[in-house]
């Protein structure tokens, strides 16, 4: 049997299992008393061992076997966990990841002897401890453990129904219990409690030496507590509904998407033809095909949609390792993992996020002592949150760290002529422009902002390439937030068609705030640029026909103006005429040399003619 054709599958499945391992390890480290992480880890590593052995990848199989043996001993409570155990397991999972990648690429490297020895030692050191003759049953081990060491219990608390601010009351109860032990697995989450998104009941696990009576008394001392119940620590994993799934190569979905794109163009042309003739049968058929193609387009896009959680899941580990290396305490929270994005965008968004998160941990969050001096809790917080808007997804990386020293950046911007010598304040826009400049780095930066821009230029470039935008908000002492906005999907976008000097241009609708009539009397000047007053707001104008140097035709008397909006920035784009909306398929665009930056791509319109797609962000 030819095994090699399974290599891709081996790689994909192993990666999934290793990713699961990382998550389970993080959880286990947080909640050492929990029993399910070790079982889950054991299962995943065992599966990798089996697959590796079948593929003939002995390096993978051996390393997995050693790791599995250690997990087995831990699972049976033959040995206990400490900080070193987790470090070792993290190392093993990392090494296994490398071994899997190398093996699948056909070059099995030398095995890590030091790691193998460390795994052996960890098992050997404690195996055969006196009074521990045989692999006792898990239950027995559990009982033995719970006599003199902290014992894990699940607690269910109900706050009185007539209490006010039940969320804050619940948090107070948690704080009271915390005095007696280590708390984990708070459900609903802290954030949900804070917003009172619960019905008065909440639960957590606590590892404590205290008796149940002492725990009840502590929790009740928070006041307004209706009941406190103890439960057997039940596994938190609920067997989620399993959808039947198959794996499809992404390249195949890409081809399918491209074909649907062509189909959309053909459908649009058919619509134009049907509208031009007077054949009712053709019109009906055209409408029908139109609906079918729209439905199909929706399904294909949906099949490419992937939860952002797939990219987010590697970050908790990253932040954990970073905070350890940097000697900081950082809580990392993730929100909106279930929000979906087109796979091709998702693949591209990981790197920008990585840079921004690393920046937040490295330069945003202060060391614990500095935070305490500033009157903040010693533990910093980084939030990675996804939210879905109509046609786009917003990703936020927010830290509660020291923020950016605007005075220093402003001084720098002045020196380099990016800001007027007279300007006293630095807008968020200009701040971003300065720090996102390639090469803005430690060497030339003023103290306190060192290295802050490293990676921001990379993030900026990648996000812009996706047709997205990047914004920054920063407040000294309070923290910094980066906001990435990307379209839901790349391939097909709804666009507004506009005419300038007899040529047609497409403007993605996602960035169109509104359209207004151009009124020459409303012209004013904004920092020596022409601007337009629209409902008391001054918006800089761009004349598309000047931009494209296509002014041969006479300027029409009435000119519509498209108000473009990216984040909080606006530009008024003056065009000759508006030609309606259309779904367009943006062709990947290898920009020829000299192509102006405001051209984001090209497309074929419904009548078969090509048109340029404008990049809204570049017009601002």
């Amino acid at each position, binding site marked *: 049997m030819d095994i090699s054709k399974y290599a891709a599958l081996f790689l994909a499945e192993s990666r999934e299992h290793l990713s699961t391992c990382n998550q389970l390890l993080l959880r286990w480290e947080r909640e050492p008393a929990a029993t399910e992480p070790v079982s889950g880890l054991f299962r995943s590593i065992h599966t990798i061992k089996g697959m590796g052995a079948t593929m003939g990848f002995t390096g993978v199989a051996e390393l997995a076997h050693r790791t599995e043996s250690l997990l087995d001993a831990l699972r049976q409570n033959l040995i206990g966990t400490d900080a070193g155990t987790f470090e070792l397991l993290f190392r093993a999972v990392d090494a296994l990841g490398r071994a899997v990648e190398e093996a699948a690429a056909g070059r099995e490297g030398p095995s890590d002897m030091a790691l193998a020895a460390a795994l052996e030692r960890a098992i050997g050191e404690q195996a055969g401890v006196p009074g521990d003759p045989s692999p006792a049953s898990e239950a027995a081990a559990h009982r033995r453990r719970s006599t003199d060491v902290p014992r894990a219990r699940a607690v269910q608390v109900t706050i009185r129904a007539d209490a006010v*601010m039940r*969320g*804050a009351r619940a948090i107070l109860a948690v704080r009271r219990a915390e005095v007696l032990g280590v708390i984990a697995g708070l459900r609903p989450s802290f954030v949900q409690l*804070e917003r*009172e998104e619960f019905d008065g009941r909440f639960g957590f696990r606590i590892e404590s030496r205290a008796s149940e009576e002492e725990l009840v008394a502590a929790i009740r*001392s*928070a006041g307004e507590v209706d009941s406190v119940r103890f439960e057997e620590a039940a596994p938190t994993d609920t067997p989620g509904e399993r959808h039947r799934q198959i794996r499809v190569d992404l390249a195949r979905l890409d081809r399918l998407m491209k074909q649907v794109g062509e189909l959309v163009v053909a459908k649009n042309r058919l619509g134009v033809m049907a509208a031009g003739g007077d054949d009712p049968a053709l019109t009906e058929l055209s409408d029908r095909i139109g609906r079918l193609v729209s439905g199909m387009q929706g399904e294909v896009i949906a099949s490419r949609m992937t939860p952002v959680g797939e990219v987010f899941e590697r970050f908790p580990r990253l932040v954990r390792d970073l905070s350890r290396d940097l000697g900081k305490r950082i809580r990392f929270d993730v929100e909106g993992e279930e929000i979906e994005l087109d796979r091709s965008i998702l693949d591209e968004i990981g790197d920008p996020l990585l840079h921004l998160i690393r920046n937040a941990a490295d330069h945003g969050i202060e060391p614990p002592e500095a935070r305490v001096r500033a009157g903040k809790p010693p533990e910093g917080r980084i939030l990675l949150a996804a939210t879905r808007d109509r046609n786009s997804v917003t990703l936020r990386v927010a830290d509660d760290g020291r923020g950016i020293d605007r005075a220093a950046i402003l001084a720098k911007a002045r020196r380099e002529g990016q800001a007027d010598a007279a300007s006293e304040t630095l807008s968020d826009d200009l701040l971003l422009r300065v720090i996102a400049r390639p090469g803005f780095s430690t060497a030339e930066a003023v103290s306190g902002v060192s290295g802050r821009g490293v990676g921001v230029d990379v993030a900026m470039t990648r996000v812009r390439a996706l047709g997205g935008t990047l914004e920054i908000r920063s407040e000294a002492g309070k923290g910094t937030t980066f906001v990435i906005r990307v379209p839901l999907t790349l391939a097909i976008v709804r666009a507004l068609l506009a005419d300038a000097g007899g040529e047609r241009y497409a403007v993605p609708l996602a960035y169109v705030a509104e359209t207004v009539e151009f009124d020459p009397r409303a012209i004013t000047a904004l920092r020596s640029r022409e601007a337009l007053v629209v409902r008391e707001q001054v918006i800089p104008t761009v004349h598309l026909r000047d931009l494209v140097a296509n002014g041969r035709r006479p300027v029409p008397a009435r000119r519509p103006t498209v108000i473009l909006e990216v984040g909080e920035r606006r530009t008024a784009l003056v065009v000759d005429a508006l030609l309606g909306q259309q779904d367009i398929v943006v062709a990947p665009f290898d920009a020829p040399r000299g192509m102006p930056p405001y051209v984001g791509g090209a497309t074929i319109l419904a009548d078969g003619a090509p048109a340029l797609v404008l990049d809204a962000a570049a017009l601002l």
Partner: protein
Amino acid sequence: MSHTVLVCDDAIFMRTMISDILAQAGFEVVGEAESGSQAVERYRALKPDLVTMDIVMPDMGGIEAVREICKTDPEAKILMCSAMGQQALVVEAIQAGAKDFVVKPFQPSRVLEAVQRVLG
């Protein structure tokens, strides 16, 4: 001996009301403060058994004051007095070290219950 209390609120009305409730229950109101910085200063001078602390005050807010007080005296017994809809601030105050909270409009019985719990 009765317990001593420091009442912190920027509104005279609220200070009077809280003082009355506590005095009637046999507590001794030893001082009042109308800002966070005053609260910190008086706490240090008076060393009261209990502090009632408004959240929103001029100059220095109540949460900031809790932080300042707990910095030197982590065992300080501080009861937050919050208006409706300030749950996030109450949570912040708890994180900062406040021991309990009551929500305006006050019911004397609830205030006293909370005071008993804090002095517990």
